[in-house]
């Protein structure tokens, strides 16, 4: 068999049998349904705040003694920076955020499963705090007093 060649007949037969067996672990319907529903989260009126950094994506997680166990994530849209700390307490999550430059944005957490969370207002220094009953895949939707809207990239928390 060459590097990019087809498998031989014997291998093909085994692949076919394994494919049938692994059907038992096929894509669950709920996963496909959720994937199809994801189109509903298309950005229509908002600017995307791209992921700038996520400590959970760092190549080498710090193993230093006393290294912070708090996950930190940041996003940027133009000159607006969103910094987020994710704190865990069993199922509960607390998001501590900092918007810069500081402005009185309204901050809403959107959960991918459609659950709504009461929006909060960032304080004069651009800080905000949001509590969630449990983790999930979330994004923040920020609305400025002048009507500008920013949505962050999705992150699992």
């Amino acid at each position, binding site marked *: 068999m060459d*590097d990019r060649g087809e498998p031989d007949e014997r*291998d093909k037969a*085994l692949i076919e049998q*394994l494919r049938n067996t692994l059907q*038992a672990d096929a894509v669950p319907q709920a996963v496909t349904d959720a994937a199809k529903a994801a189109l509903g989260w298309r950005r229509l009126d908002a600017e995307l705040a791209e992921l700038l950094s996520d400590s959970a994506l760092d190549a080498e997680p710090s193993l230093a003694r006393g290294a912070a166990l708090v996950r930190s994530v940041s996003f940027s849209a133009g000159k607006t920076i969103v910094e987020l700390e994710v704190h865990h307490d069993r199922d509960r999550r607390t998001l501590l955020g900092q918007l810069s430059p500081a402005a009185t944005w309204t901050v809403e957490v959107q959960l991918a499963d459609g659950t709504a969370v009461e929006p909060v207002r960032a304080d004069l220094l651009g800080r905000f705090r949001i509590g969630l009953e449990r983790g999930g*895949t979330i994004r923040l939707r920020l609305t400025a007093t002048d009507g500008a809207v920013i949505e962050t990239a999705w992150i699992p928390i």
Partner: protein
Amino acid sequence: MSCTLPEIVGEASGGSQAAWDQIVDRFSGLVWSTTRAHRLSAAEAADAAQSTWLRLVEHLDRIEDPERLGAWLATTARRECLRIIRIGKRELPSDEEWMFETESSDAIEARLLIRERDAALWAAFHEIEERCQALLRLVCAPEPPSYEEVAAALEMPVGAIGPTRARCLDKLRRQLDAQGADLR
């Protein structure tokens, strides 16, 4: 109905649910196999898959090379898996999560017991090394992925896939022999 991937992506970007459904139907096997190849629990794999699809929705209007969408999805799914693994390491799973995992793999095995031959192959598959399981899961996805997509899902050189696949199938055969299983 459009047929080329760039057209479908363009329509989905414009909000066409039918076009988006086509994309999901075509690649959901690839995304799911990628998440399962990373040894996530069923619940974590579902989260990683959902994050992958959300990321595509986020970037629909800026996909530079729609022909390579499969490889992009596989790469994205791999990254989402690594992120979920990292997050998970900081938390101790609750009792319910462990129970969920056990139940789900039991359920899969129960379905397999309908056919003894499947059960033997399933058992042998789980005995071979993880890297081989990961590759074979991808190779055996319902819509067979391209070499480029498999390479992206596993962060592996394209040239290594053919030889590794042959070696892993040999290992699977030897494991079946060791179990005394007859596949016919």
